[in-house]
């Protein structure tokens, strides 16, 4: 145990940073994730296939390629990056925010798919019943649909979180590997694997990463079970 937790300050920082990045990535992708899942599950519009494809890109392409694409668009000189930096002072390059962005993007298809699946399983007649009681579509969504898709939201969130804990290729390509700022656990692990004899260090960090993710998983399961027990099937 001592051996496991006897980390260097940089490693501790990597642990902290990874949790922060994964949490922010998960939380920040929830609103757009729900929105896009909703649109994909229920919308009927031209370009739906395109949107769907776009959402899946991070899954389809090697992470390094996604990292380059992020660099090209959200980097200091990238069109989006330059615009955001100028107008809102939001800078991604070499910041932990950039790591969170990369993780969010990589986890996005997983989250959207899970939420979409839940939305498609919702009995729309129940929503209709809420509508007749005077709830406008937004209220129906908030009070009926959202609670009913909670299992999907939890699944989507945990997938996104887990993915963020393991994401490496896109992150290091986009924001490199700066201790204390962008060096997440996977980057630290990677470094160890590239050094002859680094296996023990890699193993230690790997175990810590597993422990954190497992805790998140178990928490999500417990949460989902609670939600499920509350709902059952009617």
């Amino acid at each position, binding site marked *: 145990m001592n051996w496991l937790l006897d980390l260097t300050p940089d490693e501790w920082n990597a642990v902290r940073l990874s949790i922060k990045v994964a949490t922010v990535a998960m939380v920040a992708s929830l609103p757009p994730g729900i929105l896009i899942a909703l649109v994909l599950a229920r919308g009927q519009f031209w370009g739906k296939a395109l949107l769907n494809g776009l959402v899946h890109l991070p899954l389809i392409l090697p992470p*390094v390629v996604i*990292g*380059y694409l992020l*660099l*090209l668009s959200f*980097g*200091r*000189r*990238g069109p989006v990056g330059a615009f955001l930096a100028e107008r809102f002072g939001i800078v991604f*390059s*070499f910041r932990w925010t950039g790591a969170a962005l990369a993780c969010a993007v990589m986890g996005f298809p997983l989250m959207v798919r899970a939420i979409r699946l839940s939305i498609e399983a919702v009995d729309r007649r129940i929503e209709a019943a809420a509508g007749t009681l005077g709830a406008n579509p937004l209220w129906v969504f908030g009070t009926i649909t959202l609670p009913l898709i909670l299992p999907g939201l939890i699944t989507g969130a945990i997938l996104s979180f887990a993915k963020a804990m393991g994401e490496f*290729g896109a992150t*290091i*390509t986009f924001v*490199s*590997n*700066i201790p204390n700022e962008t060096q997440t656990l996977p980057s630290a692990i*990677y*470094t*160890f*694997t*590239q*050094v*002859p*004899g*680094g296996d023990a260090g890699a193993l230690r960090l790997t175990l810590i990463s597993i422990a954190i993710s497992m805790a998140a998983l178990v928490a999500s399961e417990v949460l989902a079970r609670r939600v499920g027990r509350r709902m059952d099937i009617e």
Partner: protein
Amino acid sequence: AHADDRLIVFAAASMKNALDAVNTACAADVGEAATISYAASSALAKQIEGGAPADVFISADLDWMNYLSDKKLTKPGSEVKLLGNQIVLVAPKDSTVEARIEKGFDLAGLIGDGRLAMGDFKAVPAGKYGKAALESLGVWSSVQGKLAQAENVRAALKLVSTSEAALGIVYATDAHAEPGVKVIGTFPQDSHPPIVYPVAQMTDSKDKDAPAFLKCLQSAKAGELFKAQGFTVLTPSN
């Protein structure tokens, strides 16, 4: 055809352009074109350790070759220091930075608010050489907080060519071929351990063409092709 009856070469990814050309040129001499698997030296070394059917391994640094020879996985006597390289300081091509690389030069000032991109100095060979050079020039401590360590030297180059990083330390071979960057200076050969690409045949290798391939790698025509990509040839051409 099964992988095992081919001549299989594991090579560091950064050698692809040069090695592909050499492979074509050598095919006639060797009898067949080798099948080359390009990946990070670290991955390749561990794969060989894990029983990969490689006949020849070309590493981007000595450490991983030593890792294998320590485990008696390289054929004794087959190991050769094949190529050398240089590391250079690069900047985005529209950068106005100018400098002479010498002891105590103001690298931190040149970087300014920006970052110095280089390979991960613990993991990536080019990063290790870069760190050694900066240390011997006495500027390491002043730039340590301004590093952007990349997964590999190509990624570091990308950071510079997209102007994410103000400066970068990369191989001369990469810098020459990248139009998005300009070379500010070359680190002195003596500021870092020699950059060496060793090659060896594997203990388990049974392919009869392997020696011929090793020989051809060291031939003059191969040397020309390596030089064309910016490598220095360390073996005396016969």
